[in-house]
C-alpha cells in the first residue's frame, strides 16, 4: 500500500499548532495595542510601566481604570461571541448560524432597554447588565418551552426566530413609548454596542457568566464533531444530543447574554469569525471552538481599536464597525454558497 506523503501529512497535522500560536500572538499584540492607543497621550513604555508598577497618578489611573478593563472586556466579549458562533454553527451544521439565532441577544437587549426606559439603569450600575441577563434567561426558558429539551434542530431555529421577533417588537414598543428623545437616543446608542467607559465592575459582572458559558460550550466539542455526520449517526455513536442541546442553549445564553449585558448588541463576530477560521482547522467543529474564541477576541480588539483610531471624537459605536466589516463578508459568503449550490 502506497502510504501518504509523510511530509505533507505532517504539515497538515501541525497546522492547528501554527494557527493557535498565530492567533494567540495576534490577540496579545492587539491587547497591548488596545492598552497604548487612546485620547490621553501615554507612551508605550510609561503606560505599561504604570500598569505593573503600582504607582499612583493620572497615567496609572487611565491605564488601570479605563484602558485595561476595556481591553479585557473586548477579549471576553469577542471570545464569547466567537465561541458561541462556532458552537451554534457546529450544532446546526449551518455556516449561516450565529449566536443571535436562538433569540438570546434580542431578549438580553430587550431587558437592557427596559432597564434604560424605566430608569432602573440609573439607580445602580449593575442594574442594566442584570436586566439584560434576566432577559437572556427568560429567552432560554421560552426556547426550552417551545422547542423542548430534545427535538430536531429546526424547532430550535424556529423557536429562536419567534423569540427574536417578539423581543424586537417589544424593543420597538419601548422605543415608541419612550418619554423623551433623550431616553430614546440613549437606548439607540446602547443597542449599537460599545465598550467605551466600561469599568472593572462590568468585567466582574460578566466574567462568571461567560466562564460558565465557555465551559458548557467547550464541552460540546465531541458531539459537534460527531454531528458532522448528521443527528442519527451522532446519536448512534453514543453521543447524547439532548444533553448537548441543553449545554448549547445554556452556554450560548450565559456567554452571549453576559456579552450583551456589558457591551450591547454586537453583531457579525459570531457569524464571520468561525467562517474565516474553518478552513484553517480542517473543518473540524471541535477545533473551531477554541480557534473562534481566540479569533473573536482578536476581531473585537481590532474593531475597538479602529473605533478609537478612525473617528476618535465622534464616538463611533463598536457594533456599527463589526456590522460594517461583517456584512460585506456575509454577502461574500452567500455569494460563494450560491455558486457552490448552483
Amino acid at each position, binding site marked *: 500500500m502506497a502510504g501518504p506523503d509523510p511530509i505533507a501529512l505532517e504539515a497538515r497535522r501541525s497546522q492547528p499548532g501554527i494557527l493557535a500560536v498565530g492567533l494567540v500572538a495576534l490577540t496579545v499584540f492587539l491587547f497591548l495595542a488596545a492598552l497604548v492607543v487612546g485620547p490621553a497621550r501615554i507612551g508605550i513604555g510609561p503606560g505599561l510601566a504604570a500598569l505593573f508598577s503600582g504607582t499612583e497618578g493620572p497615567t496609572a489611573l487611565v491605564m488601570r481604570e479605563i484602558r485595561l478593563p476595556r481591553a479585557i472586556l473586548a477579549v471576553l466579549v469577542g471570545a464569547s461571541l466567537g465561541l458561541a458562533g462556532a458552537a451554534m454553527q457546529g450544532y446546526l451544521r449551518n455556516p449561516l448560524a450565529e449566536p443571535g439565532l436562538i433569540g438570546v441577544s434580542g431578549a438580553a437587549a430587550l431587558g437592557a432597554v427596559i432597564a434604560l426606559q424605566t430608569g432602573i439603569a440609573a439607580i445602580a450600575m449593575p442594574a442594566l447588565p442584570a436586566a439584560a441577563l434576566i432577559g437572556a434567561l427568560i429567552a432560554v426558558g421560552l426556547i426550552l418551552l417551545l422547542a423542548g429539551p430534545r427535538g430536531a434542530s429546526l424547532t430550535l431555529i424556529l423557536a429562536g426566530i419567534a423569540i427574536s421577533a417578539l423581543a424586537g417588537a417589544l424593543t420597538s414598543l419601548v422605543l415608541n413609548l419612550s418619554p423623551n428623545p433623550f431616553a430614546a437616543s440613549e437606548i439607540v446608542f446602547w443597542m449599537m454596542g460599545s465598550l467605551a467607559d466600561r469599568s472593572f465592575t462590568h468585567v466582574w459582572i460578566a466574567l462568571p457568566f461567560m466562564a460558565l458559558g465557555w465551559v458548557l460550550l467547550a464541552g460540546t466539542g*465531541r458531539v459537534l464533531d460527531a454531528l458532522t455526520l448528521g443527528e*442519527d449517526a451522532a446519536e448512534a455513536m453514543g453521543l447524547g444530543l439532548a444533553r448537548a442541546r441543553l449545554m448549547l442553549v445554556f452556554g450560548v445564553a450565559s456567554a452571549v447574554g453576559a456579552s450583551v449585558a456589558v457591551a450591547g448588541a454586537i453583531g457579525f463576530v459570531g457569524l464571520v469569525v468561525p467562517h474565516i477560521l474553518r478552513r484553517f482547522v480542517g473543518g473540524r467543529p471541535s477545533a473551531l471552538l477554541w480557534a473562534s474564541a481566540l479569533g473573536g477576541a482578536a476581531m473585537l480588539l481590532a474593531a475597538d481599536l479602529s473605533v478609537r483610531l478612525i473617528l476618535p471624537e465622534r464616538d463611533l459605536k463598536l457594533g456599527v464597525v463589526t456590522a460594517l466589516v461583517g456584512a460585506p463578508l456575509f454577502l461574500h459568503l452567500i455569494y460563494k454558497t450560491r455558486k457552490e449550490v448552483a
Partner: protein
Amino acid sequence: MSLLTLDTLTVRRGTCPVVDSVSLSIGPGECVGLIGPNGAGKTTLLRAALGLLPSTGHSSLANQPAAARARAAAWLPQSREIAWPVDVETVVALGRLPWRPRGAPLSPHDAQAVSGALSRMGLASYRTRTATQLSGGEQARVLIARTLAQETPLLLADEPIAGLDPASQIATMQVFAALAREGRSVVTALHDLALAARYCTRLLMMHQGRLVADGPPQQVLSAENAARVFGIEGRFDAEGRYQVLEAAS
C-alpha cells in the same frame, strides 16, 4: 450468542403500526439482507432496533446504555451527510469516538482501525482528500469506512449501496460478506434483490411493517413471496443467481 434480539418490536405512528411486532435474532457471522418495497418499514425497524426511535416490545440494543450500544453496533444512516469540508481520514476517524476517552488523541490501535477501514473500502489513497469534494458514490464509501472503523460486532446499514456504480456495489457487498466470514455480522437494507441473493447468507423480507419471511435467500425469494410482496416475477437460474424478470401481471 446473539448480537441482536428483537421481540415483538412495534413502532406506531399515530395508531398505525409502521413496524408490527417483529421478532428475530442475529447471531455472529451473518450477512443479513433486509428487503421489502418502499414503505415496508425497513428503516424504521433498524432505527427502532438501535433505540433511535421510541418503540414497544424489546430490542437488546435499545436497552443498553448509549455508550455500550455504540461499541456493540454501528449505524450507517441512509442520508449521507458530511456537513463540513473535513478530510477523508477525519471522517473515518469519527468512527473511533465511542472508543476514545474524552479529549484523548487517536491511539495506535485507533489509527490502525482507521487505516484498515480505509484500505478495506479502497480509499487508502483518498485519506487527505476533502470528503465533501468527492463524488456521491465516493462519499458513500467513506461513510461505510467510518462504520467499519467503529469495529463493532454488528453493523446496521440502511441502503449502503444505493447510488454506487456496479463495481462499488459488488465490492461493498464483498466487504460485508468478508466481515461475516470473520465472525462480525451485517444487517443491511437493500433494494437490489440479485445482489442480496448473491451475497447475503440470510434475508429478512418486510411487507407493510411485518416480517413476512426470514431465512436463506432461496427460501425467502420464492416466486410466491416475490409476487405478493414486490409484485414482480423473479427466479433463481441454474447457477443460483437471482433474476428479476418482469412485473407480475
